[in-house]
């Protein structure tokens, strides 16, 4: 064990810097203890207290730097002392790389003067508080969270309305602002059609069809799934309509919603009637007469709405591939199914995709059940057990408690899929696969093993298993639309080209003729 001191004359370093260098020195191999400090009485005292004082130390002056180490004696102490000395010149370079970390919206909004939108996806119990703070900072809000109470939604939207801000969501996590996708959104081209949607996947479907038909989107504003309820009263849809009317880059407006509340529908239509721009309206179960009375264009199905919109936006009808229903395919599938295989089972990750297929089935069959049926009498008694024609929205709250949305993790419906696939009364299973920002990186891949398993089982049992798959996406989406479709086809899945066709094909596949 030995002690050695080095005095550097007239060398000044700040005492706290020195303390931290001392700490580093103590980490050097062979160092039992190290003390580096200016030659002050206080530091000398500290050195004396731990028994490391030497004659050199005692003679050091206030302006001198003292380095004193004690080693275990195994290595040459002079070498170790040199190592310690090097610490004095070592500079820490990490500072410029670190990015400022903000903890609150207020802090971030104060520092980032150009920030104009807050995207909020924290758990529902805290989401409204955060949204309120964002609106207080005059930020537009995209509220991706679900489980936000309707009271909070109304209060937030009133604040936003009074400030002239957007308050998008909750329960409808989609928007495309200035060609930038927020949350769940597809990569579509910029264009002159503006979409205001109170339904997430319904709005995505509309943007993707418009893109497929060669036109583009100026803005897509997701207003939140409950915006057209009478409680909320369409606050955001109406504000968005006014904004699109005033937007010189928007020539045509499309409105999308699940069945709206009657009073609110009237309120919205009254606004529509006053607009100068053409408006196409696809409200599931919408009132055709009321819509045409408002001088708007009524569409029963989603693709139909997209076609009307692109024509109004300048597309030429004779150049469109409208993707009409494939009648020979329907006949072919009908022939493959036995009389017993008569039910549709729709297992959806997208709520409005589920809705549209269900509405198509409801037009033809009286026995359609779902967890999201508009008539409570047709709700499933047990959401885990299907009944006759069943349509399940796996993105609905009862399935997402404590787990990711099925568009983020499509495997949540695998068990249910296998259950339906082994049911001899099932004629067709409908599956959606949503691509785009926010969605799973390979939604088809996540389901493929289960699809192979189900096909194998059906083959062993000597029955045909019809699976109709729909991939919602564009060729610009990262997940690779073409490859996703190809994988499904290779697994023997029939491909539908739109949400509208998925519903119509599904219901026709199991049609047994008028009884």
């Amino acid at each position, binding site marked *: 064990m030995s002690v050695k001191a080095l005095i550097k004359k007239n060398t000044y370093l*700040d005492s*706290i*810097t020195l*303390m*931290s*260098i*001392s*700490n580093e020195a103590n980490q050097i191999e062979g160092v039992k*203890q*190290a*003390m580096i400090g200016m030659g002050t009485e*206080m530091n000398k*005292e*500290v050195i004396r*207290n*731990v028994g*490391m004082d030497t004659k050199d130390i005692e003679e050091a002056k206030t302006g001198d730097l003292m380095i004193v180490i004690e080693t275990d004696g195994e290595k040459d102490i002079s070498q170790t002392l040199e190592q310690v000395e090097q610490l004095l010149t070592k500079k820490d370079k990490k*500072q*410029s790389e*670190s990015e*400022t*970390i*903000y*903890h*609150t*919206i*207020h*802090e*971030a*909004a*104060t520092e*980032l003067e*150009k*920030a*104009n*939108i*807050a*995207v909020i*996806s*924290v*758990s529902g*119990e*805290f989401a409204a508080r955060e949204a309120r703070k*964002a609106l207080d900072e005059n930020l537009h809000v995209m509220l*991706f969270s679900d489980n936000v109470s309707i009271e909070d939604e109304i209060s937030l939207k009133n604040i936003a309305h009074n400030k*002239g801000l*957007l308050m998008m969501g909750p329960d409808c996590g989609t928007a495309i*602002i*200035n060609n*930038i*996708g927020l*949350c769940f959104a597809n990569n579509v081209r910029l264009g002159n059609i503006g979409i205001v949607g109170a339904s997430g996947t319904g709005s995505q479907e509309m943007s993707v069809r418009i893109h497929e038909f060669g036109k583009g989107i100026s*803005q897509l504003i997701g207003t939140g799934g409950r915006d057209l309820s009478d409680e909320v009263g369409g606050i955001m849809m109406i*504000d968005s309509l006014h*904004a699109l009317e*005033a*937007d010189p*880059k928007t020539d045509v407006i499309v409105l999308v919603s699940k069945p709206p509340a009657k009073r609110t529908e009237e309120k919205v239509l009254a606004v529509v009637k006053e607009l100068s721009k053409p408006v196409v309206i696809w409200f599931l179960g919408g009132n055709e007469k009321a819509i045409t009375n408002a001088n708007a264009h009524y569409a029963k199905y989603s693709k139909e709405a997209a076609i009307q919109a692109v024509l109004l936006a300048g597309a030429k009808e004779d150049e469109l591939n409208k993707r009409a229903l494939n009648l020979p395919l329907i006949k072919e599938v009908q022939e493959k199914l036995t009389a017993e295989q008569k039910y549709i089972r729709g297992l959806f990750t997208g709520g409005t995709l589920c809705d549209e297929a269900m509405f198509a089935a409801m037009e033809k069959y009286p026995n359609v059940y779902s967890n999201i049926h508009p008539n409570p009498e047709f709700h499933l008694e047990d959401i885990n057990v299907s009944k006759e024609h069943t349509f399940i929205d796996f993105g609905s709250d009862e399935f997402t408690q404590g787990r990711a949305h099925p568009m983020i993790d499509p495997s949540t419906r695998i068990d249910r899929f296998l259950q339906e696939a082994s049911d001899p009364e099932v004629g067709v299973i409908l599956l959606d696969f949503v691509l785009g*920002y*926010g969605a799973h990186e390979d939604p088809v891949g996540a389901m493929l093993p289960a699809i192979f398993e189900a096909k194998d089982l059906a083959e062993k049992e000597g029955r045909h298993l019809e699976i109709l798959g729909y991939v919602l996406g564009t060729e610009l989406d990262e997940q690779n639309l073409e490859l996703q479709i190809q994988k499904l086809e290779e697994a023997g899945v029939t491909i539908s080209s739109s949400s509208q066709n998925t519903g119509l094909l599904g219901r026709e596949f199991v049609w047994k003729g008028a009884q």
Partner: protein
Amino acid sequence: MNKINELFNNEIEAINIGIEFIQEDLVKQGVKATHLAWTPPAHGNTELIRLLDQLNTPDKKKKIEEANKEAVDRILKSQPVLIGFDQAINVVPGMTKTTILHAGPPITWDKMNGPMKGAVLGAIVFEGLAEDLEAAEKVAASGEITFSPCHEHDAVGSMAGVTSASMYMHIVENKTYGNVAYTNLSEQLSKILRMGANDQSVINRLIWMRDVLGPMLKEAMEFNPEGIDLRLLLSQALHMGDECHNRNIAGTTLLVQELAPYIVQTSFSTQDKKDVFEFMASSDYFSGPTWMALAKASLDAAHGIENSTIVTTMCRNGVEFGIRVSGIPGFKWFTGPAQKVIGPTFAGYTLEDSGLDIGDSAITETFGIGGFAMAAAPAIVPLVGGTVEEAIGYSKQMREITTTENPNVTIPVLDFMGVPTGIDLLKVIETGILPIINTAIAHKNAGIGMIGAGLTNPPFEAFEKALVALEEKMNE
């Protein structure tokens, strides 16, 4: 143009709160998107959130805002002036020959930690109440000594804060509101009473401070009836790179410069004067207690304003951390366990040896300096174990839990931003951001002294308790 159309015509810049991939998707699209290091409000405690919401009704919110404005106004308008020095027995309210004041919220002898016990024993010997440390132990436990928090006697004490009858005190008068604050004199080195050391060298120094330093300062200030305006010195010290809790090199120089003309006029011998000047120069910390008294004088003026949620005291006794809130007058303490201080230690010691957070010095952070003003003192950064940017970050972040910025005490590097002032209890609970405190570390055992310095925070619990009490009081 309406704000929605404005958005359509501008580039999007997003703040993302929650799921991280949403930010990543935006960045992929070339959008500037900042992901917040978000945590649930009130640490996710639904009961506390309910209380916050109850205090957020329009009428209560208004009452609180008005009260807080009054409280911070009083902090800002305070003019603390050093008017003299005297022995505690002569000036500190309630002081007796057998009273020992200590740092932090109330604590009994048996519960005190090592450094505080060490300091108490040393003080008993220093006051002649016992022959030696062994006998002092019996006296301390006998019940003959009255232990009381400095704060409850208009005083503050650094580290153990142990203050006894014959020690000399700063006398700082708040000229605006008339209240006075006291604190004792720096002992300078590291092996000192306030750090828990108590051997003969410590006692001898205290005796010299009582017989030479203290009386000389007292006499010097008698030549200066105007007193020394501390706030002006404080502002200058920050501009010279101090944060006035752990870095006091500029402040000490300024204070000595103010005192020197009067010290030279005193009747003491040249040798005594030389000793005093050398003592003052022997450690940068000489003015440390002075700024504590400044902060105490200003904050006491803001205490006891009905409905105010401003924190007026933060202090620790080595076992518990205690806070006071303006809206709850008197000495109602809200406490939680004192925390570890994380930072570099002197050679021969590790953090294992450290006592828990101790001292009334967090009054500086309560006022807005110390940890809150670290951006003014880049040289102190190694204490943070990080970077200058981080130190600057602390000062900016403290704005999230404070009410205003002090226009009289500014930080040049932040474009002369005033120090964050008026810690709002509600904001602490809401954001979960705790005040940042930089402080010295005393050895956990009695008799040793200072072993390092570092950073710490108050326990969230103390703020929780204060919120509950305040909400109750507002419902009365």
